[in-house]
């Protein structure tokens, strides 16, 4: 490895020149190709960071793809191995994200961050006595400045699906309530929901939105906020109980 770049493994070219067309590379030559190109796999994996996947997982996907590249490579076709491997590894990395439903989750992540920014901004305005900077919002939400800017920009299109839309007759929040969470059925007046939600702590609000607005499973929420699924289950139950309490109190007033 040198500087920002990737050192093409010179001796690999020598090794592969001895292989016959159509025959898989095997033995020591195969091992050497894999070992010498692990740096390439690592560099390509790093290009896909910041999409919510740990580097270790990406490196693993890239490394497996590298092995496939070596096994499929035919040196007699005159294609540079690094170019062939790069294309294969990037293809596998993209497939990895596709298979995990990443596009949907990425949209949700931006959406969640946009919602988080609303809470963080309110909190920081109170703490600082002024509007927070993007850098301060990034620290408060544990995100990069780029992600914060992007969420603010992309968030403009999310307004119609935010909790503020819950007073609409076509309320997506109500539409998605179902199954065992029908405890919301007790809420006849939807207008009561938003003010009652506002009384919950930010994290509980966020969890309720993820569950009922965005339709995430408890496991997905657990992954998103870094706690166990059981803990999410408990938080949901207690939040719903508290919500019912607030709504009941408001109705009684």
């Amino acid at each position, binding site marked *: 490895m040198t500087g920002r770049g990737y050192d093409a493994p010179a001796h690999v070219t020598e090794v592969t020149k001895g292989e016959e067309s159509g025959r898989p590379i095997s033995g020591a030559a195969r091992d050497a190709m894999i070992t010498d190109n692990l740096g390439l796999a690592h*560099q390509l994996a790093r290009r896909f960071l910041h999409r919510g996947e740990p580097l270790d997982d990406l490196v693993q996907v890239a490394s497996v793809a590298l092995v496939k590249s070596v096994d499929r490579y035919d040196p007699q076709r005159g294609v540079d191995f690094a170019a062939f491997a790069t294309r294969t590894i*990037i293809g596998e990395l993209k497939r990895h994200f596709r298979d995990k439903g990443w596009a949907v989750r990425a949209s949700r992540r931006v959406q969640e961050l946009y919602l988080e920014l609303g809470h963080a901004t309110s909190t920081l305005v109170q703490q600082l006595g002024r509007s927070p900077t993007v850098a301060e919002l990034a620290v408060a939400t544990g995100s990069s400045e*780029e992600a914060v800017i992007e969420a603010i920009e992309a968030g403009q299109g999310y307004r119609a699906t935010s909790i503020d839309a819950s007073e609409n007759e076509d309320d997506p929040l109500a539409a998605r309530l179902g199954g065992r969470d029908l405890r919301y059925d007790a809420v006849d007046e939807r207008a009561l929901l938003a003010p009652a939600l506002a009384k919950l702590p930010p994290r509980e609000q966020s969890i309720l939105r993820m569950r009922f607005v965005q339709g995430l499973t408890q496991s997905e929420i657990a992954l998103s906020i870094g706690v166990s699924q059981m803990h999410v289950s408990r938080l949901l139950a207690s939040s719903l109980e508290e919500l019912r309490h607030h709504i009941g109190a408001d109705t009684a007033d």
Partner: protein
Amino acid sequence: MIGASDGGSVDTLGEGDQVVLTFPARGDLVVLARLVASAISTRVGFDIEELEDLRLAVGELCLLALQGSDDWHGDLRLEFTVSSEALDISCTSGGAALAADGRGAEGDEADQLSEQILAALVDEHGRVQEDGSVRAWLRKRRKGPLE
């Protein structure tokens, strides 16, 4: 389309629209190129996977222009041009000169990696020397017709 809950809440860019971004040729400012690429991709109608491809590709394009340049203190000029069949992006490093073999004096391996990454992400790409400047370019075709 990212963020478009009803298909009409995000402004679109159409055929013939062009966006130009000029910024100091510094690696830490490539974030600007990615952000603009992201916003434009959304408005052109690319899906989120294509958008991420373009964010990655634009970063490589900037690297190529920088690595192919002997001037790291000038400006990078990014041009996004929308057509009915594709989004074309070019990155020009002003006042720079390519080496005779078409590669930068430094970072040949980095150049090669960037070009290989571009080859995997976009439909066409290249790098040329024009009027004393280095211009790296790419083309990403649409899957469907212009909306």
